Structures are given as structure tokens and as C-alpha cells.
């Protein structure tokens, strides 16, 4: 498991060495639907999943604690 995680972050590091996209080239990246987080209205969906499912975390939502959920 640890090896897999390290592998993922190594791959991520590889991509970070790509040529940088300039600010003036970020029109498409800055589209509101391209954000890498979830929208505020999506919090309720994430919350009910944290209650109804055993898995949580790595999605910007709850990871455990602070609620009566698992």
C-alpha cells in the first residue's frame, strides 16, 4: 500500500516537471467547472455518503469525527 502511494506521488512529481502553463494560457483551466474541489452544494452529498458508507476521506469531506458517522 505504502509503495502504491509513493508511486502515485512520484508520478505526480514527474508531471510537475512539465512545462508550466503561463497565466495568460489559463483561460480554460480557470473555468469554474475545472476546479479540483467540490462545490458548496455538494457537501450534503458527501456528508450522507460518510454516514452510509464505511469509506471516507480523500474527497475534501469528512474523514471521521465531528459527526455521528463512521
Amino acid at each position: 500500500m505504502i509503495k502504491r502511494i509513493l508511486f502515485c506521488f512520484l508520478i505526480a512529481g514527474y508531471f510537475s516537471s512539465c512545462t508550466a502553463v503561463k497565466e495568460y494560457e489559463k483561460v480554460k483551466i480557470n473555468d469554474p467547472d475545472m476546479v479540483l474541489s467540490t462545490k458548496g452544494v455538494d457537501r450534503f452529498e458527501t456528508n450522507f455518503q460518510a454516514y452510509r458508507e464505511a469509506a471516507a476521506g480523500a474527497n475534501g469531506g469528512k474523514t471521521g469525527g465531528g459527526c455521528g458517522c463512521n
Partner: protein
Amino acid sequence: MISTAVGFAQEGDSTATYKKRVLENTEVDFLASYYTQEGDNAAVSGGVGTEHLTNVTPTVVVSIPLNADDVLTIDGEVSAYTSASSSNINPFDGNKPADPFVASSGASSSDTWTNLTGTYSHSSDDRNNIWSAKLAVSTEYDYFSLGFGGSYTKLFNEKNTEVSINANVYLDNWKTIYPFELRPFENGGNGLNNSLFRSYNITGNQNYSPDFVALDKTNRNSYSLGLGFSQILSERLQGSLALDVVQQQGLLSTPFQRVYFKDVEDSFIQNFQLADDIERLPDNRFKIAVGGRLNYYINETFVLRSYYRYYTDDWGIRSNTASIEMPIKVGQKFTLYPSYRYYDQTAADYFAPYEEHLSTEEFYTSDYDLSEFNANQYGFGVTYTDIFTQFHLWQFGLKSIDVKYHYYERNTGLTANIIAAGFKFVLD
């Protein structure tokens, strides 16, 4: 000539000192959701019984720019629910025959969870370093939680790359509420002499004598550490990776969830089977979740948003989550959001269905949230955006409206519907 030179000088100075505010104006989000679910595997009645539940969650989030660099966010949420299964903590209300498939009218049939979270964030002058601190308080009738945490985010590579680290601690405390028929068997209780058993006849095994030991812990501490990495991969593609590691200690079971053993004779009052015990789970749990997002800008109309997560913990649960959403822009102001999500998990080592546990086991639960299952979720949403904020409410201009609906179904039979809406206002 001279005035032009002065003008250029002033422009040069202002460019040197100008700093775009992290948040231009105060923003207020009014959010709400309505959730309802149906199922026949209630954990309160040992894996058999109605799971009917409704939940309404009004929420207000206010983000206030304190200066050019600092933002204070106050998040207040109230979650009011009615639950048929929770009502059966005490199914003997005298109104109707006690039955795990019929809601009772007791005090536990509804409750309100209230949360207040304050987050303070500070950005460096070049906006490449962001610090934040968070304090959260939650309360429910049988539950209190104090949470705090912090995060640090670093942007570099011309803001193409972002790494972050966050840590959170939640200190939760439960007021232990046990199934009604077990309470007379707590240490010092009067057992079958209790008025419950004088008011109702026990059928099946009439010598009901559960070996019930009250829980010795009422606290739950959760410690989480998160790492994040995001990268712009091209003018149209960006992705992120997230890792969350969580250690939980203390009371990790729910005190009012019943378990029925197959090696113990069954006792009933009316149609309701009396508990053999409450669920028992280890007082430690270590979780790891790794997730990745990849978003691709197809063209001016379509964007593709994808997500995958792998989860594992030391209770034996492994899980996969994959989702896809395709925002579709319709004109200048509307965007449609069709989505699909798949989820699966293996069962916890301590899970078994109704009447399949043995009383000799150390840990046991019949909570189907810890069972093996897969789930499909279908969603659709609409967003209205007005960048000119033409509609006003007092001094606030309406920036956007979001409405989303999701239908969720498990292969265990549980189904859920959730509709959520959000209104974002910006102070003029």
C-alpha cells in the same frame, strides 16, 4: 509632457504596490438539502427493520475578507432528522404493537445536529503560501464534538503546482443511550422486575436475561493527516492527488444498535425481538484513503470531471469509489450537471447479518453500513450564474443558484434521494 511622465511614474508605483485581494467582497452562501432513505436493514434493530429516515439541513456560510490577505469563514449548519430506526431505541410506546418495521413515537425518533465552524486563512503577498486554522463545535442530543485543525498550501512552478498538508483533531463525546429493554440489565438494574416486563408479556424465551455490560468509554478521538498535490498538466487538463490518514480511538460503536445471536434463544415483546447485546467494535481504527481527480476542458460547452478513490482500514474494509460528471454549458448563464458515481466496499471483519453472530465473539455488528455492498448513484444538477449580480437582496447581489438531485441505490436494498440547493450572494 511632465504630467504624462508623472502619470507613468504613478502607474509604475501602483503596479509595484498593488495586491489583489484574496476575496474582494463578503460572500454569503445559503444552502439547504432534503434527504430521505428507505431500507429494511436497520442497525438499531439488529439488521432487520425499517431504515426510513428524512433529514433537512439548512446551512449558512459567510466569508468575510478581513484585509487583502486574510479571510474569515463562518459556517453554521443545522441538520434536523426524523428516523424510524432511531425511534425503535424504545419501540414500546404503547401506541402500536412494537415492531422493527414500524416507527415508534419516542423521543429518539427525531434529533438535531448543530455545527459551527470558523476558519481563518492567511495568504502571503505573492499568494504562493496559504495558511489556515479551523475550530469546529458540533452538538446533538447524545453527542458533542470539538474539532480543530490547520493547513498549509504552497504554490509554485508559476502556480501550476500546488502541495498542501492539513491536520485535524476531533474530540467527540457520546452520551450512551442503550436499547430500552437492555437498560434494566445494566449493573445495578432490576432486570425482569422492571416495569417494562411487568407491562408486557415476553414471548419465545420468557427467561430473558441478556449478559449486558455497559460501555466503559464514551469518548471518540479522531486524528487525521492529509496531503494534497495538484498539477496543471496542459491548457485543458489538470489533476490532483489526495491522501488522508486517520487514526480513531475510543467508542467507535453506536451504543443503541442491537445485535441478535444465533446461539441465544429469542425473546419477543409483541413483534419486536429483544436485544441480546449492543454492537461491540474495537476501540481503534486506522484508515487510509487515496484519491485522485482529473478534469478535462473539452470545449466551450463540455467539461469532463472524474474522480477515483481507494480506501482501506484495519477493520478489513476495502473500497473503491469512482465518479464522473460532465458539466454542459447552455447559454451564458446556465450549466447542467449530469453525474454518475459507483461505490463498493468489502465487509468489516466484525459484520454479520441478523442472527448470524455468536455470543462467544469479541466484536460484532449487524450495521449494514459496514457490510459488503456496492452502490450506484445518479445525479443531475443545474446552475444559474449571473456574473453581474443584477438581482439584489438588500445589499447583496445574487451571484449563482445551484440545484442538485441525486438518487442512490445499494444492492442491499437501501435507496436514498437527496436534493440540495445553494444561493450565493456577494456584498456590493
